[in-house]
């Protein structure tokens, strides 16, 4: 009935593949270094003969002012970088209450207190407010941070008058707002330094001799990139926040001994093209290595002139060829080192794909080799899973007399669920697990179920299921026709998706492979009206994995219409009765009459089920009573009561009608 069109897969392939193969590897962008942009100007040009007179003067000013600012303010307090920028715990526990004097206060103390709390950018905790004189109020605040916050508000208008604040410190006497402004924080100053030293037109940030910038006042020496890697991070962050478009940065004349503090520069400023470390104290390649040169993608020029490393190279090799090679391998994108062009690196077209993070092909939806296969498989899937969910014994004639069935249970929870969950309840599935990883060789033969009768008996023992065929996004089917012998064509059918494990009301996922053949005339399948017969049936059941892997996949040319068909079938069969129990084989017709007594273990289990299903005490009692009278297990009784809207008598009656179809493990024994 399939027709012998097993070549169809290959033909389909050809058309699909030409498309895919045309794409090829991801194309490379145009060479950024062809042609000169305004940013491609060499920094050594810029630095070497500084065309910027104000910069020169500025540097001179810095030199002249060296040591000009006497240290009045406690460095320990103002240095945010000391002890890694975190408050020193020892100091923290000291009583640090600070007194702030507010002058020119005309009005109620409480009103001023409210005003400052409202106006301050940072929270201020005022412990005490005392009026010292007609116009002076003394606030006691928790610590220096709060005192500084008050100081920041100096000049605030209160009832039409300008209020000024000053800190009254035990050690340092009075600090006025003016003093404070000089020392707000290194960060504020650093930010200002960055902005001042940036040239918008050339996108050039000159941080040469940053440590001696007058703006940093007496805190010069604190901005030492050798001492604090944290400072480097702060600096990068400030640059990124304030001048993200920067292309050229000079760290010249900073006495840098290594570049550890700039190890994250590539991450903060990935677009930076030119870097200068001229006239620092870099001695070996190890000092430069922390810059992570291989992580810069746009870096084209580097300056390390006037560092000891250059001298050493010259002494050792007589030229810089060795250094150029080493630097090039550290900074693969680099084109110019100290104004000399670097050789184009010799690179191989190897390993790019191996380290790539993206897969070379998109994930596609269900694959079907031909329309013929599509219609057969669609028909099969709908009929098979409808019967599997409602009446497994009805599948009997669908299996060949010699059909084979096996089930593997994958207990592993999917990777994306692992963060929150350790395992899933798979216990009611494991009886027929044939996973070769865990099953002993001697058992494997028994666990391969042979022949249609054994298969149906096995299927009947599996937990009840509901496959959501009405939702296309919940399963994926790959299918094509195969020749397994010159005379035999089969449909190779792989389906993955989810189903509801009805008893425990949990979704599970499965993958299943069928091999189905056209049914022989006069066979049981043909007589029962089946156009096909199942030869092989191989199932893996596993904890629910969702359908994220395929539900948004790009569509393949031939598609199924399963959900629509199922929906219209459901609408047409609205009057058809759906059976309460999934009727299976008639195996157990002797229902005992005497009420059943639960064992302590069973009672304990029932209590767990009660909690699991959120039953109230009344419902719990009803389920137990039905169980006692019918010997049905707790879960079967629960399902029965659910189906009869918790009417006990109807449930009992309903049970009597279908009791012949309850499988043996539906009862307590």
């Amino acid at each position, binding site marked *: 009935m399939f027709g012998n069109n097993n070549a169809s897969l290959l033909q389909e392939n050809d058309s699909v593949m030409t498309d895919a193969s045309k794409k090829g590897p991801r194309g490379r962008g145009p060479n950024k270094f062809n042609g000169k942009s305004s940013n491609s100007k060499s920094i050594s040009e810029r630095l070497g003969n500084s065309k910027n007179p104000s910069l020169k003067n500025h540097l001179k000013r810095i030199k002249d002012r060296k040591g000009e600012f006497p240290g009045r303010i406690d460095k320990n307090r103002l240095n945010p970088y000391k002890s890694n920028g975190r408050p020193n715990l020892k100091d923290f526990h000291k009583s640090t209450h600070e007194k702030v004097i507010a002058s020119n206060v005309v009005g109620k103390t409480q009103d001023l207190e409210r005003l400052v709390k409202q106006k301050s950018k940072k929270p201020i905790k005022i412990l005490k407010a005392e009026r010292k004189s007609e116009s002076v109020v003394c606030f006691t605040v928790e610590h220096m941070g709060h005192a500084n916050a008050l100081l920041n508000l100096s000049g605030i208008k209160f009832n039409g008058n300008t209020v000024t604040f000053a800190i009254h410190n035990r050690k340092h006497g009075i600090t006025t707002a003016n003093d404070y402004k000089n020392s707000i924080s290194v960060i504020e100053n650093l930010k200002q330094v960055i902005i001042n030293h940036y040239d918008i037109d050339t996108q050039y940030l000159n941080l040469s001799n940053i440590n001696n910038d007058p703006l940093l006042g007496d805190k010069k020496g604190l901005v030492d990139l050798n001492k604090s890697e944290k400072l480097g991070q702060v600096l990068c962050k400030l640059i990124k926040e304030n001048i993200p478009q920067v292309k050229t940065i000079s760290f010249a004349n900073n006495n840098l001994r290594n570049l550890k503090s700039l190890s994250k520069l590539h991450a903060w400023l990935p677009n930076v093209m030119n870097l200068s470390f001229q006239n620092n104290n870099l001695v070996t390649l190890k000092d430069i290595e922390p810059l992570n040169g291989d992580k810069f993608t746009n870096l084209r020029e580097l300056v390390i002139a006037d560092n000891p490393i250059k001298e050493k190279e010259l002494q050792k090799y007589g030229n810089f060829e060795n250094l150029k090679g080493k630097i090039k391998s550290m900074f693969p994108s680099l084109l110019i080192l100290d104004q000399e062009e670097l050789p184009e690196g010799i690179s191989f077209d190897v390993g790019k*794909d191996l380290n790539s993070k993206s897969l070379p092909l998109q*994930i596609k939806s*269900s694959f079907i080799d031909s329309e013929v296969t599509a219609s057969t498989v669609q028909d099969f899937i709908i009929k098979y899973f409808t019967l599997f969910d409602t009446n497994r014994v009805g599948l009997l004639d669908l299996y060949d007399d010699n059909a084979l069935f096996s089930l593997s249970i*994958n207990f592993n929870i999917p990777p994306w669920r692992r963060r929150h969950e350790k395992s899933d309840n798979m216990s009611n599935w494991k009886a027929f697990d044939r996973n070769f990883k865990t099953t002993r060789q001697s058992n494997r033969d028994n666990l391969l179920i042979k022949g249609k009768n054994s298969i149906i008996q096995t299927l009947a023992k599996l937990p009840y299921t509901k496959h959501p065929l009405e939702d296309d996004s919940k399963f994926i089917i790959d299918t*094509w026709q195969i020749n397994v012998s010159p005379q035999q064509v089969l449909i190779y059918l792989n389906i*993955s998706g989810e189903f509801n494990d009805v008893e425990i009301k949990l979704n599970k996922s499965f993958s299943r492979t069928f091999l189905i053949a056209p049914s022989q005339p006069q066979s049981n399948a043909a007589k029962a009206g089946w156009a096909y017969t199942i*030869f*092989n049936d191989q199932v893996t059941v596993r904890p629910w994995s969702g359908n994220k892997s395929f539900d948004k996949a790009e569509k393949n040319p031939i598609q199924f219409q399963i959900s629509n068909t199922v929906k219209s079938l459901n609408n047409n069969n609205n009057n058809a009765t759906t059976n309460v129990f999934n009727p299976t084989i008639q195996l157990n017709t002797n229902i005992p009459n005497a009420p059943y007594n639960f064992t302590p273990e069973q009672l304990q289990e029932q209590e767990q089920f009660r909690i699991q299903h959120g039953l109230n005490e009344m419902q719990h009692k009803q389920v137990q009573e039905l169980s006692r009278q019918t010997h049905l297990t707790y879960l079967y009784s629960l399902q029965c009561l659910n189906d009869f809207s918790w009417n006990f008598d109807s449930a009992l009656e309903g049970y009597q009608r279908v009791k012949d179809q309850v499988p043996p493990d539906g009862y307590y024994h």
Partner: protein
Amino acid sequence: MEQSSVYSNVINSGATAFVDQYYKIYDTNRGYIDGFYKENSAILWNGNPFSGITQFKDFLLKLPVTTHTIQTYDCQPVLGSEKSIMVNVNGEVKYSDQSSKQFHQNFILMPDLEKQGTYYVAHDCFRFI
């Protein structure tokens, strides 16, 4: 179809050897993967079809480094065939340093009539699940 337990032992150990070798070569020596296939093998990778090993190998060589972890596998003799075997595999695969993905892969192994005594992957269906 042969039903004897001797034969079923043969195919069971054959499937075990196949699963071991296949993923080992896939993960560590992918250039040799073509040894498992032939030019008429039908291969599907996440809905993308390949006819024959040449096309598929091109694709495989572009895949990032893989690490497969096999969680379950199982095999059956294919009914109506001369000694064909169906092998079903479930597990996880990690690409480079990305997080693991779950996969399902089913193979139809057939005897290679041109090379007596050897099998090849005639059909291969792979899916992330």
